[in-house]
């Protein structure tokens, strides 16, 4: 990994913190060591040289005082520095000097024993714990100076010879330097390792920070995408709803001409009948007037035979027999027409209802009847509709407006399939059979036609959005896709079909009847919604 200035700076910070911590820890170790050494010095003095004698009298040995006072003095400064200024260079240097001095003290107190000289080498090794080669310098200087100065100016005190011995002093200092070489090397290597470790950590931190930054950036992007996606989903749902409404309006629109025709036909003959009845009433009023005049006995004296002749002439002139026969017929026919219009209008009103968000218990048979009524103009020239409705069908919890749309799509599709096969005829050859029935779990609606059936190769695409076999302008290809969505997603039902080529197609609509109302097994607390 490349070292950026930032990484280098951070590595330097980490190294500084770690070395400072190392210095502090080692300072504390030395503080403890000095206490131990002090105790050891007093113990050594007490053990080896407790008393001095003069004849038969004794007194406390100078070494005891030296161990207590000088040993305490030597330990006091480094301990104080370790407490007051831990980790500082001054502390390390003080400890270095004091440790070398302690070597001299212990050697002295032990009577110059060879074994005690190992304290010098042990101390140097201990000082190397700092991994700071500079710390070795004061200790080495103290040891070397002691040997050099005493070797030159006081040889008997250290080498046991009277003549100055610079060579031996150098030899002694040389052994110390010999150890120093390795200790300095280990300090440099140790510090290099620490530096490398600090650099590695800095690089890891930078990589982590970079990764976190990338993660945050990606998270922000992902969040933005999620929000966009949620907005898209909301929009899609809205669009889907609009599409459903559009498809519904399309269906109604396509039916509008036929419905208007269905309304117009009865309205036409109602109008004709009304005109005819008006004429008939005029004639009846005229007859009534004439009856009144003929029956007037206050005027000229006209014989009854003449009066009878005039009445007969008037009845014949007014086509009374026709009136007697046609007026009731016209009224019945008009009443029938009005009922047809009312039925259509009621069905239209039901269809055009915007629907509800919550399901309501509905009469599925009534929905079928409404659909058949609304779509009559689409099928009456190509088929006759046979209804085989189970009158014991329970009320089903459903969205009536949505199911109406499904039924309308299926009926219109069946009619279109029959028109494709038979064309428009005076006497339609096609049959659309709509049956309803109930099983243990579902209320079922089957819409069967005897058309050509659906070709094998397109059966798997029937419920695909925008798939249609109709000519452009005849359909959007959304009818069955929306119907499938309404049945499966909004009602947890099933919409399937079975088709046989040349024989026709049966669409099966299954709607769960959970919590539904069954007339033969009414459940308490369940209310049939108005249908």
């Amino acid at each position, binding site marked *: 990994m490349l070292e950026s200035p930032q990484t280098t700076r951070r590595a330097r910070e980490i190294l500084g913190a770690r070395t400072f911590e190392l210095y502090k820890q080692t300072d504390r170790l030395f503080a403890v060591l000095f206490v131990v050494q002090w105790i050891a010095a007093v113990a050594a003095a007490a053990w*080896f*040289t*407790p*008393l*001095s*004698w*003069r*004849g*038969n*009298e*004794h007194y406390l*040995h*100078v*070494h005891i005082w*030296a161990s207590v*006072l*000088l040993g305490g*003095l*030597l330990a*006091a*400064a480094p301990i*104080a*520095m370790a407490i*007051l*200024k831990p980790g500082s260079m*001054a502390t390390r240097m*003080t400890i270095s*000097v*004091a440790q070398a*001095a302690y070597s*001299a*003290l212990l050697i*002295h107190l032990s*009577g*110059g*024993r*060879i074994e005690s000289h190992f304290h010098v080498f042990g101390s140097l090794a201990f000082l190397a714990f700092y991994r700071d080669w500079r710390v070795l310098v004061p200790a080495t200087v103290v040891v070397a100076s002691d040997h050099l100065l005493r070797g030159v100016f*006081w040889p*008997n*005190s*250290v*080498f*046991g*010879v*009277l003549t100055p011995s610079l060579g031996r002093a150098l030899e002694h200092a040389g052994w110390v330097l010999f150890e120093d070489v390795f200790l300095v090397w280990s300090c440099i290597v140790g510090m290099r390792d620490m530096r490398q470790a600090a650099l590695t950590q800095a690089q890891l931190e930078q990589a982590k920070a970079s990764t976190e930054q990338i993660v945050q950036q990606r998270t922000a992007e992902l969040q933005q995408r999620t929000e966009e996606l949620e907005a898209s989903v909301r929009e899609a749902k809205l669009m889907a709803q609009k599409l459903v409404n559009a498809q519904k309006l399309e269906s109604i629109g396509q039916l509008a001409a036929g419905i208007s025709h269905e309304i117009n036909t009865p309205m036409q003959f109602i109008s004709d009948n009304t005109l005819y009845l008006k004429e008939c009433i005029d004639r009846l009023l005229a007859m009534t007037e004439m009856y009144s005049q003929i029956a007037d006995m206050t005027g000229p004296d006209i014989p009854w035979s003449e009066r009878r002749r005039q009445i007969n002439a008037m009845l014949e002139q007014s086509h009374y027999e026709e009136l007697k026969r046609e007026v009731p017929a016209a009224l019945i026919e008009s009443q029938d027409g009005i009922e047809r219009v009312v039925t259509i209008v009621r069905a239209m009103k039901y269809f055009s209802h915007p629907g509800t968000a919550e399901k309501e218990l509905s009469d599925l048979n009534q929905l079928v009847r409404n659909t058949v009524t609304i779509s009559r103009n689409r099928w009456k020239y190509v088929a006759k509709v046979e209804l085989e409705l189970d009158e014991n069908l329970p009320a089903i919890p459903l969205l009536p407006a949505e199911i109406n749309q499904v039924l309308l799509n299926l009926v219109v599709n069946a009619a279109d399939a029959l028109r494709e096969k038979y064309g428009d005829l005076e006497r339609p050859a096609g049959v659309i059979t709509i049956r309803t029935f109930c099983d243990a779990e579902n209320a079922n609606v089957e819409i069967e036609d005897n058309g050509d059936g659906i070709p094998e190769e397109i059966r798997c695409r029937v419920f695909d959005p925008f798939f249609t076999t109709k000519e452009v302008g005849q359909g959007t290809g959304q009818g069955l896709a929306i119907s499938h969505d309404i049945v499966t997603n909004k009602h947890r039902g099933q919409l399937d079909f079975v088709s046989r080529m040349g024989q026709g197609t049966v669409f099966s609509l299954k709607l769960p009847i959970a919590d539904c109302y069954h007339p033969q097994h009414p459940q308490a607390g369940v209310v049939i919604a108005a249908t």
Partner: protein
Amino acid sequence: MPVKATNRTTDLACIAALVIWLASSVVGFSMLVAYSQSPGTLETPPLDALDVDWHPRTPFRLFVAIHPQCTCSRATANELARILHDHSDVLACKVLMYQPESAPREFGETWLMSHLATLPNTTIVRDVEGRTARTLGMRTSGSVVLYGPTGSALFYGGITVARGHEGDSVGSQCILSLLENQPPATTSTDVYGCPLERPATSP
């Protein structure tokens, strides 16, 4: 007071304390070394030791005066052990153990005397009040006198460099030289140890 100035004052105080500490340590060490290097009383021995009834077969005779309780003399015992280790065939050693008159016999039962008793060709005798030692000019524990084959004194003094300090010493080297018929660097050295006589005020 600003923090910077406070730190500076603290640093100066610290430096001053360290300097004082360093100086005190140097002084302390100097005093210790000076004590260690302060020799005891030594007199010239008689030219021969005819008055001492001891006639070993070895050509060289070494008299050593030891205060059994003197811790400084342990170093002398160790140096003596080194000398005798290689030269016990030519050197016999007689240790004159200081025994105060008023002290019990257990006075001399110390680790030091036990150690000396293990040395080769070495004899230990009680020297009441150090009288014998004094006849040989030895008034300090750790003093030695070497007599040669002719019966004359060849070397006297101490065989340690300081009080209780082991290691090479001029005295040891001189004795070894004489044992090997080599001329010694000197015939006398300082001796470091406890005095073998009572203080003047002592009863």
